[in-house]
């Protein structure tokens, strides 16, 4: 029997009653009820224990999650007192960290508390979340925060506060990068264009002029290629600094009006130009500032610049037009020998249109078969016999007519089309050589001119090897001519290519010798077989050479270096005699023959 029931019976009933059979059923029912009650209670107590354990551990993991969130979380009641808060961070706008202080104005500094205050009022009123951002000074900089207040239950508000300083800074950085050049810190083309457009609006309103100047460094590409990009970058930064310095000392424009358009192109906006001529005052300053020697690492460099200027309204109505025309003027300055400045003119516009026409025409010229090879004979001086032909490229433009190689070769080099054009020249020359042989003419060596671009292109050798193999031509019948300037770039690759050509037993000629930059050291380094004296020296023979002996010296030098010497541009009997007298090996020039198409040159060839 249940202990409690036993005790109760003993206390309240005489013992003999317990034996009464009438009571047995009742007592048993009471006993069962007591026992069941105990069981039920034990079961529920156990359930309460278990579930409170479960809830406690769920709470613990929630707290862990809350504590690991970088946000600060505060729970406010309707009286704007902080009831709970996480203590992950101690933001500097917090006045009091102890649990003792809970009033909004006790916990946060006045300024921040006020912002929370009005947000709290709004959330309690609307029952909708409210977000706001605020900043707080931290030394020299600002810290930024984002607060999100959410209503919970009926009169409480949860405030989540997140430090968004990093995000803010990177947003600012991104915004800055969108409008600036990261290398020099100058405005970029986009910002410059917007400023010019804005300036045009002002100029139009006040009936004023403005000017856009585009500046390009002369020979920057050479520096980049030979000294490496890091040096190039340092140079650009220094130029940017100098331009700013120059503008600061002038009253013509503001420093913020300098921008980098890209590459080595800078641009300046003069937004208040009374007279265009006034701009000229600042140009010498820019020229001389840039021309000042600069020390990059341990190397001293001197660089010049070419500038072009376009003026609103006569040279363009919008930023793009002005920049484009200033650019054209700058190119004109380059063509005029660099290190100078040019204003845009209508004439210049025509020139740049023509250049555009040539550039697009060149792309089609190969497909349309507009190229042709002319051949100029090379004559052995001793025997006066034909010893070779120089292949010269001619382009017949469908609208412009014959275009000079001096005009289209630089364009082809800039646009990269020179590689395919050069390949066409070699294969056409070989084709012609083989054709003549099959027609029964005595084999004669044909020399073709290659650009520096070919020598720097490591795939060129492969092309040449394949061509020689497929055509089966005797390599002795092929010559390659290069200019001094083509040896200046990428020396390692150039040397490799020249070595390969030499190994194929192809004769190498140095063309236009004396006009470039080559030194004796260069000549010795490269495996040159033939030295071709530039026509300018030959033309001067009668006037000057008798006194200076320059041509004679070149011939002697060539011989000392073990090279054959060929004179170009021989036009007179006197020139011929002079060269013969001083031991020149061969000549080419109008005296014997001007360059002729294949059909005509064939008359000079000998039948076997």
């Amino acid at each position, binding site marked *: 029997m249940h202990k409690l029931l036993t005790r109760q019976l003993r206390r309240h009933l005489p013992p003999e009653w317990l034996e009464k059979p009438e009571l047995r059923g009742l007592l048993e029912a009471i006993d069962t009820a007591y026992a*069941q009650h105990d069981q039920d209670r034990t*079961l529920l107590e156990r359930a309460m224990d278990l579930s409170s354990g479960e809830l406690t551990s769920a709470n613990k993991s929630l707290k862990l999650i809350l504590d690991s969130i970088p946000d600060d979380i505060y729970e406010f009641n309707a009286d704007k007192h902080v009831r709970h808060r996480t203590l992950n961070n101690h933001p500097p706008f917090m006045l009091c960290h102890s649990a003792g202080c809970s009033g909004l104005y006790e916990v946060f500094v006045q300024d921040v508390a006020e912002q929370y205050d009005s947000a709290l009022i709004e959330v309690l009123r609307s029952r909708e979340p409210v977000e706001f951002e605020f900043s707080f000074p931290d030394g020299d900089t600002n810290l930024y925060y984002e607060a999100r207040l959410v209503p919970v239950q009926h009169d409480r508000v949860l405030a989540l506060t997140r430090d968004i300083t990093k995000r803010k800074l990177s947003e600012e950085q991104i915004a800055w990068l969108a409008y600036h050049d990261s290398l020099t810190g100058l405005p970029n083309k986009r910002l410059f264009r917007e400023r010019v457009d804005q300036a045009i609006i002002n100029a139009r309103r006040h009936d004023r002029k403005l000017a856009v100047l585009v500046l390009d460094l002369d020979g920057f590409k050479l520096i980049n290629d030979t000294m490496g990009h890091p040096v190039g970058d340092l140079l650009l930064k220094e130029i940017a600094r100098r331009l700013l310095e120059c503008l600061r000392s002038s009253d013509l424009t503001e420093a913020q009006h300098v921008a980098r358009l890209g590459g080595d192109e800078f641009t300046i906006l003069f937004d208040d130009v009374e007279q265009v001529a006034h701009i000229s005052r600042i140009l010498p300053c820019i020229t001389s500032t840039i021309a000042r020697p600069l020390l990059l690492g341990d190397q001293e460099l001197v660089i010049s610049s070419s500038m072009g200027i376009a003026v609103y309204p006569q040279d363009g109505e919008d930023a793009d037009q002005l920049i484009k025309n200033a650019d054209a003027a700058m190119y004109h300055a380059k063509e005029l020998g660099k290190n100078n400045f040019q204003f845009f003119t209508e004439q210049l516009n025509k020139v740049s249109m023509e250049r555009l026409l040539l550039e697009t025409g060149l792309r089609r010229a190969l497909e349309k078969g507009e190229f042709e090879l002319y051949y100029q004979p090379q004559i052995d001086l001793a025997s006066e016999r034909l010893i070779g032909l120089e292949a010269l490229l001619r382009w017949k433009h469908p609208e412009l007519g014959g275009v000079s190689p001096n005009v289209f070769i630089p364009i082809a080099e800039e646009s990269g089309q020179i590689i395919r054009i050069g390949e066409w020249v070699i294969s056409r020359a070989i084709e012609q050589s083989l054709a003549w042989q099959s027609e029964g003419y005595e084999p004669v060596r044909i020399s073709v001119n290659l650009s520096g671009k070919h020598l720097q292109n490591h795939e060129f050798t492969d092309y040449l090897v394949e061509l020689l193999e497929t055509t089966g031509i005797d390599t002795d019948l092929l010559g390659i001519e290069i200019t001094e300037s083509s040896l200046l770039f990428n020396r390692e690759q150039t040397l490799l290519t020249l070595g390969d050509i030499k190994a194929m037993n192809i004769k190498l000629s140095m063309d236009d010798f004396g006009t470039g930059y080559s030194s004796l050291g260069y000549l010795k380094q490269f495996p040159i077989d033939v030295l071709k004296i530039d026509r300018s020296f030959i033309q001067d023979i009668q006037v000057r050479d008798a006194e200076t002996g320059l041509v004679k010296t070149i011939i002697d030098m060539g011989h000392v270096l073990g090279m054959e010497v060929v004179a170009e541009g021989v036009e007179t009997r006197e020139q011929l005699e002079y060269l013969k007298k001083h031991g020149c090996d061969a000549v080419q020039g109008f005296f014997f023959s001007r360059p002729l198409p294949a059909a005509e040159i064939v008359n000079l060839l000998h039948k076997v």
Partner: protein
Amino acid sequence: MHTVQNRWQPEHGWLWPLGERNRSQLLLVFAAKRLLAEGELLRQIRETYPSALIIGCSTAGEIMGRRVYDDTLCLTAIEFEKTRVKGARVRVEDAAESHAAGRELARQLAADDLKHLFVLSDGLHINGSELVRGVTEHLPPGVTVSGGLSGDGDRFEQTLVAWGDEIRERQISAIGLYGEHISVGCGSLGGWDSFGPERLITRASGNVLYELDGQSALDLYKTYLGEHAMGLPATGLLFPLSLRLPENEKPIVRTILAVDEKEQSMTFAGDIPQGCYVRLMKANFDRLVDGALGAAETAGHGLRQGAPELAILISCVGRKLILKQRVEEEVEAVHEVLGDQAVYTGFYSYGEISPFTPDARCELHNQTMTITALSER
């Protein structure tokens, strides 16, 4: 409506001789499985009431008057004056056929003047939620449905449903009440309290539950039951689940029917949809009794005319397991509301079928007291 009741008890036999009101159209029989399975008593009844429609089922306790009995057979013979009654029966192989079975019953009993459907179903081989969905799917609005799943004490081994003197497992019997003279009120209330954390149903299929919060649900029950785990599945009724369905604001109670140790699974009387949340529930004596009272009030209000003449009380076995000696308190509470003029019958079940309120959708409930009050004008 005229109603007479009789009861058979092993020690006394029939309370009084069978045969009164032998023109009754409908007989409701609720009995211990053993008594029903023997078939003898049903044969006697059949002979006495040869033309009556007889439906009934095995129980976890019979209700008659103010008392709750075990191991008896309770008979209620109903003679309607103006109301037509029609019966239907379907048999199922397994729980997957529940929905189709419900639909078939509704099809057989459908008629323009159908007022109410009363369903007694097998309690173990059926998905009660699906059965109810099938029954109610095509019913016109205004037709109410109530009923229950048959029981087998606290054994959960085999439940039987009677259709005439055919007594079978996997059987569902139903009657339809027709005409404008019958009025039916239904009410259902639980009175259980949720406790502890909300748990996500992470693995379940139909009415079979495997995992809560990624852990074995069966293990969870065993931990909570302690030494009572030995009494599973019956003791599982001490902690029903409160199920929050996305479409319902009011949580539904789900109660356990079976456990499978090999599969580590628990079968419930209705759907346990994966992705929903459940909480354990515990009994609160006063609230259980209040629940019965509330159900009676709802059912009484549901009667649009007159005082109730017959009240069918279907209450969950889980309540009986909890209330034990106090189980009659909930029957008495119903009496207090519906009055002494009514005749009371019913049983302790493995699931209750009723809308929460007269206007709500009919649903399968667990752990509730469900009352169907009838009155004929």
